[in-house]
């Protein structure tokens, strides 16, 4: 607390000296820089106020002090151990010198961004018999003087930004039925929105909005429509009741349309013959009205998912030039291995274009008007049959977010190629809170394409031309969220060698790399204080990066030890 008081006193002093030098400063928490609608719509370049830095989901910092010419001088400024194992995936979110970081188990750390001193720490006491299938948390949301975190036991908690004290704590749903939250809340116009996970446990997922001040629930929209709702007829029988369709990742927001966009997960259980129909709104992007939560549009990337291809990420909102006109685009590198260009409109979401960015053997065609794929049935898992498909269940791109740099005009995609999965479908009865995969689990395997010399790829795409600009290949799997900067760089970790790297955003050349404590699956961010640019990221291997490593090791008969344990790293240019 002492450090926070120092910051607050300093901030207050600066303000008071400027405005009213005769008044003595008070150590008031109100001197924390309140987060407003205006600030979230136009974040200051020196701050990182939300999951991807802006509502459009770019993962872009306009800061340009660190460049391809000087990035070799990047050096650690401070580090902090989080005290927790497993997947550290949250970005350091920074508001005028105060950094908020979440860790697995829904711990929230408030830090002095300059020094790494702990201002406060929220440690959630989890139920002792909780099941954590995805032991991670992907960050906080900010509004006014509060900090919001969704928890792995399916609560939404509002904390006082200055003290860390709980302002309110709301049950979003029952963890004993398999509901949990991994994403960073999306805050728009005083509404805190979260989506629920639990598709592998047969939940019926939803997105809900809560009043930022009081915690009152304002609306709840299921991603699996119930009886009487549009799309319900794309399900058969009672399959909708346990249909899954998790919401894993923070939505994006278009203020002009007053719509939020969300990626959705696969239908449960995995094999499609166990939930016949298209299964809206699984493996889709859906557009929700901010005020009502009503679904205003959707695009389903693939119907009747059978591959565990959650389309977890929300598309990036960016303008794309095609055919002589500007498209208000939604760009989504899919887990299904296709790069999707959609158009967001007041009346819904339109299909523009899709092409594979990794080798994909499932789709036989894409309808040029609707974008609906046709499938090769030999590669579609079903009950009682052994089916192999590529890319495997982790897909062409999983949850680690892609980024867009408006200066280079490139979209940077953290991809995985040359891996395949084999599944054997097996009917299973549903039990609340239990795994509900519909497969003969011990027979699930991963294989690598014969002769392949790489799996991970950082790809840069020009969406105007629809062409790939460059590719950097990694020998093994790549689980690195991507940050790009106005200085012309791309930052990403994600490999099992514990490296965090900087690439030239234009050429893809590796310009700097640093070996951290663990594998870097955290979302990197950038901020500035006193004119100095910093790059921040969490290193802490776990969850699906670790799972895929285990599958690869089983396939190859190897054993790869990637140490766990979370550390926050902050870098800046040295002398």
């Amino acid at each position: 607390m002492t450090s926070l008081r120092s910051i607050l006193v300093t901030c207050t002093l600066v303000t008071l000296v400027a405005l009213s030098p005769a008044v003595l400063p008070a150590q008031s928490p109100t001197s924390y820089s309140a987060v407003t609608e205006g600030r979230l719509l136009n974040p200051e370049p020196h701050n990182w106020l939300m999951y991807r830095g802006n509502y459009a989901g770019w993962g872009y910092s306009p800061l340009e002090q660190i460049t391809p010419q000087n990035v070799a001088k990047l050096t650690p400024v401070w580090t902090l151990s989080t005290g927790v194992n497993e997947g550290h995936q949250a970005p350091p979110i920074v508001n005028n010198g105060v950094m908020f970081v979440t860790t697995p188990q829904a711990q929230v750390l408030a830090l002095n961004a300059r020094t790494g001193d702990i201002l406060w720490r929220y440690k959630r006491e989890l139920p002792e018999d909780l099941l954590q299938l995805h032991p991670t948390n992907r960050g906080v949301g900010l509004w006014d003087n509060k900090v919001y975190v969704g928890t792995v036991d399916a609560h939404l908690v509002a904390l006082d930004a200055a003290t860390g004290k709980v302002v309110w704590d709301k049950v979003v749903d029952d963890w004993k039925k398999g509901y949990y939250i991994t994403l960073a809340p999306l805050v728009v116009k005083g509404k805190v929105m979260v989506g629920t996970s639990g598709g592998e446990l047969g939940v019926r997922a939803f997105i809900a909005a809560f009043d930022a001040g009081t915690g009152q629930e304002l609306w709840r929209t299921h991603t699996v429509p119930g009886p009487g709702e549009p799309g319900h007829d794309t399900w058969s029988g009672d399959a909708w009741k346990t249909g899954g369709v998790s919401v894993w990742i923070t939505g994006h927001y278009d203020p002009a349309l007053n719509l939020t966009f969300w990626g959705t997960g696969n239908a449960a259980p995995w094999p499609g013959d166990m939930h016949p129909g298209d299964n809206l709104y699984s493996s889709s992007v859906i557009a929700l009205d901010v005020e009502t939560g009503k679904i205003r549009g959707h695009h389903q990337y693939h119907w009747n998912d059978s591959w565990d291809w959650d389309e977890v990420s929300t598309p990036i909102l960016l303008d794309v030039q095609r055919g002589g006109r500007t498209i208000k685009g939604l760009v989504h590198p899919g887990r299904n291995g296709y790069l999707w260009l959609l158009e967001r409109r007041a009346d819904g979401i339109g299909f523009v274009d899709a092409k594979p960015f990794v080798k994909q053997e499932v789709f036989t065609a894409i309808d040029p008007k609707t974008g609906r794929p046709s499938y090769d049935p030999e590669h579609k898992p079903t009950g009682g049959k052994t089916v192999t498909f590529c890319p495997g269940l982790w897909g062409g791109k999983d949850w680690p977010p892609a980024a867009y740099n408006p200066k280079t005009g490139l979209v940077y995609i953290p991809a995985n190629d040359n891996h395949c999965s084999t599944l054997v479908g097996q009917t299973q009865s549903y039990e609340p809170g239990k795994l509900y995969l519909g497969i003969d689990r011990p027979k699930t395997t991963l294989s690598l394409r014969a002769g392949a010399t790489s799996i991970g790829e950082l790809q840069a795409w020009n969406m105007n031309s629809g062409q790939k600009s460059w590719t950097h290949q990694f020998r093994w799997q790549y689980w690195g969220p991507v940050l790009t900067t106005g200085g012309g760089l791309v930052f990403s970790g994600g490999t099992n060698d514990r490296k965090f790297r900087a690439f030239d955003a234009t050429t893809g050349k590796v310009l700097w790399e640093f070996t951290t404590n663990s594998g870097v699956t955290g979302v990197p961010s950038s901020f500035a204080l006193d004119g100095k640019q910093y790059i921040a990221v969490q290193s802490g291997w776990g969850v699906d990066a670790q799972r895929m490593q285990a599958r690869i090791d089983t396939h190859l008969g190897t054993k790869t030890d990637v140490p766990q344990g979370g550390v926050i790293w902050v870098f800046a240019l040295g002398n």
Partner: protein
Amino acid sequence: MSARRSLLKVVAGLGLTLPLSRLAVTRALAQPDSKAARPQPGDKLIRAVAGAPGSALTPATVPAGGPPVIAYPMDATTGAVRDGSRLNQVLLVHLEPRDLAEETRARAAAGIVAYSAVCTHTGCDQWDWDARAKTIKCPCHFSTFDVKDAARVLDGPAPRRLPALPLNVSGGVLVVAGGFVGRPGFQQGGA
């Protein structure tokens, strides 16, 4: 708490003596507590199957050579099934006594070994059986445990073994001989 307070008021209103009222309260509260309480010596075991309580497991009902059976303890006196906590799930495997490590054999009954069925990593409670290696693997994050040898960790992120549960056979059925050897469930981190 409100139910307990009501009960205390009733007991007090009846003018019962203190030792008697304490006994009455203890008995009245035993039912809900006993469902969440960890396995107790003397408990029997029944299959953990939703909606089908079944009868106490005998050695013959646990298939020799695997796969494992997941069970809940049952209070032998009241018949209350201790399914009030996921942490009470018990994994039973029937193996050849000669294949068991000495410490494990001492806790086994008729070749049946018992462990907490909740992974010490992040609390998953379903298991994939390797019949050849006689190991169990958690499908959530692939930790593998050697059920022949105190459920020690062979592979994966689990930080420690599964707590063992000593067994006996009494009256032809499997009976818990002692509490879990160690704390079941995951360990919350944080400095």
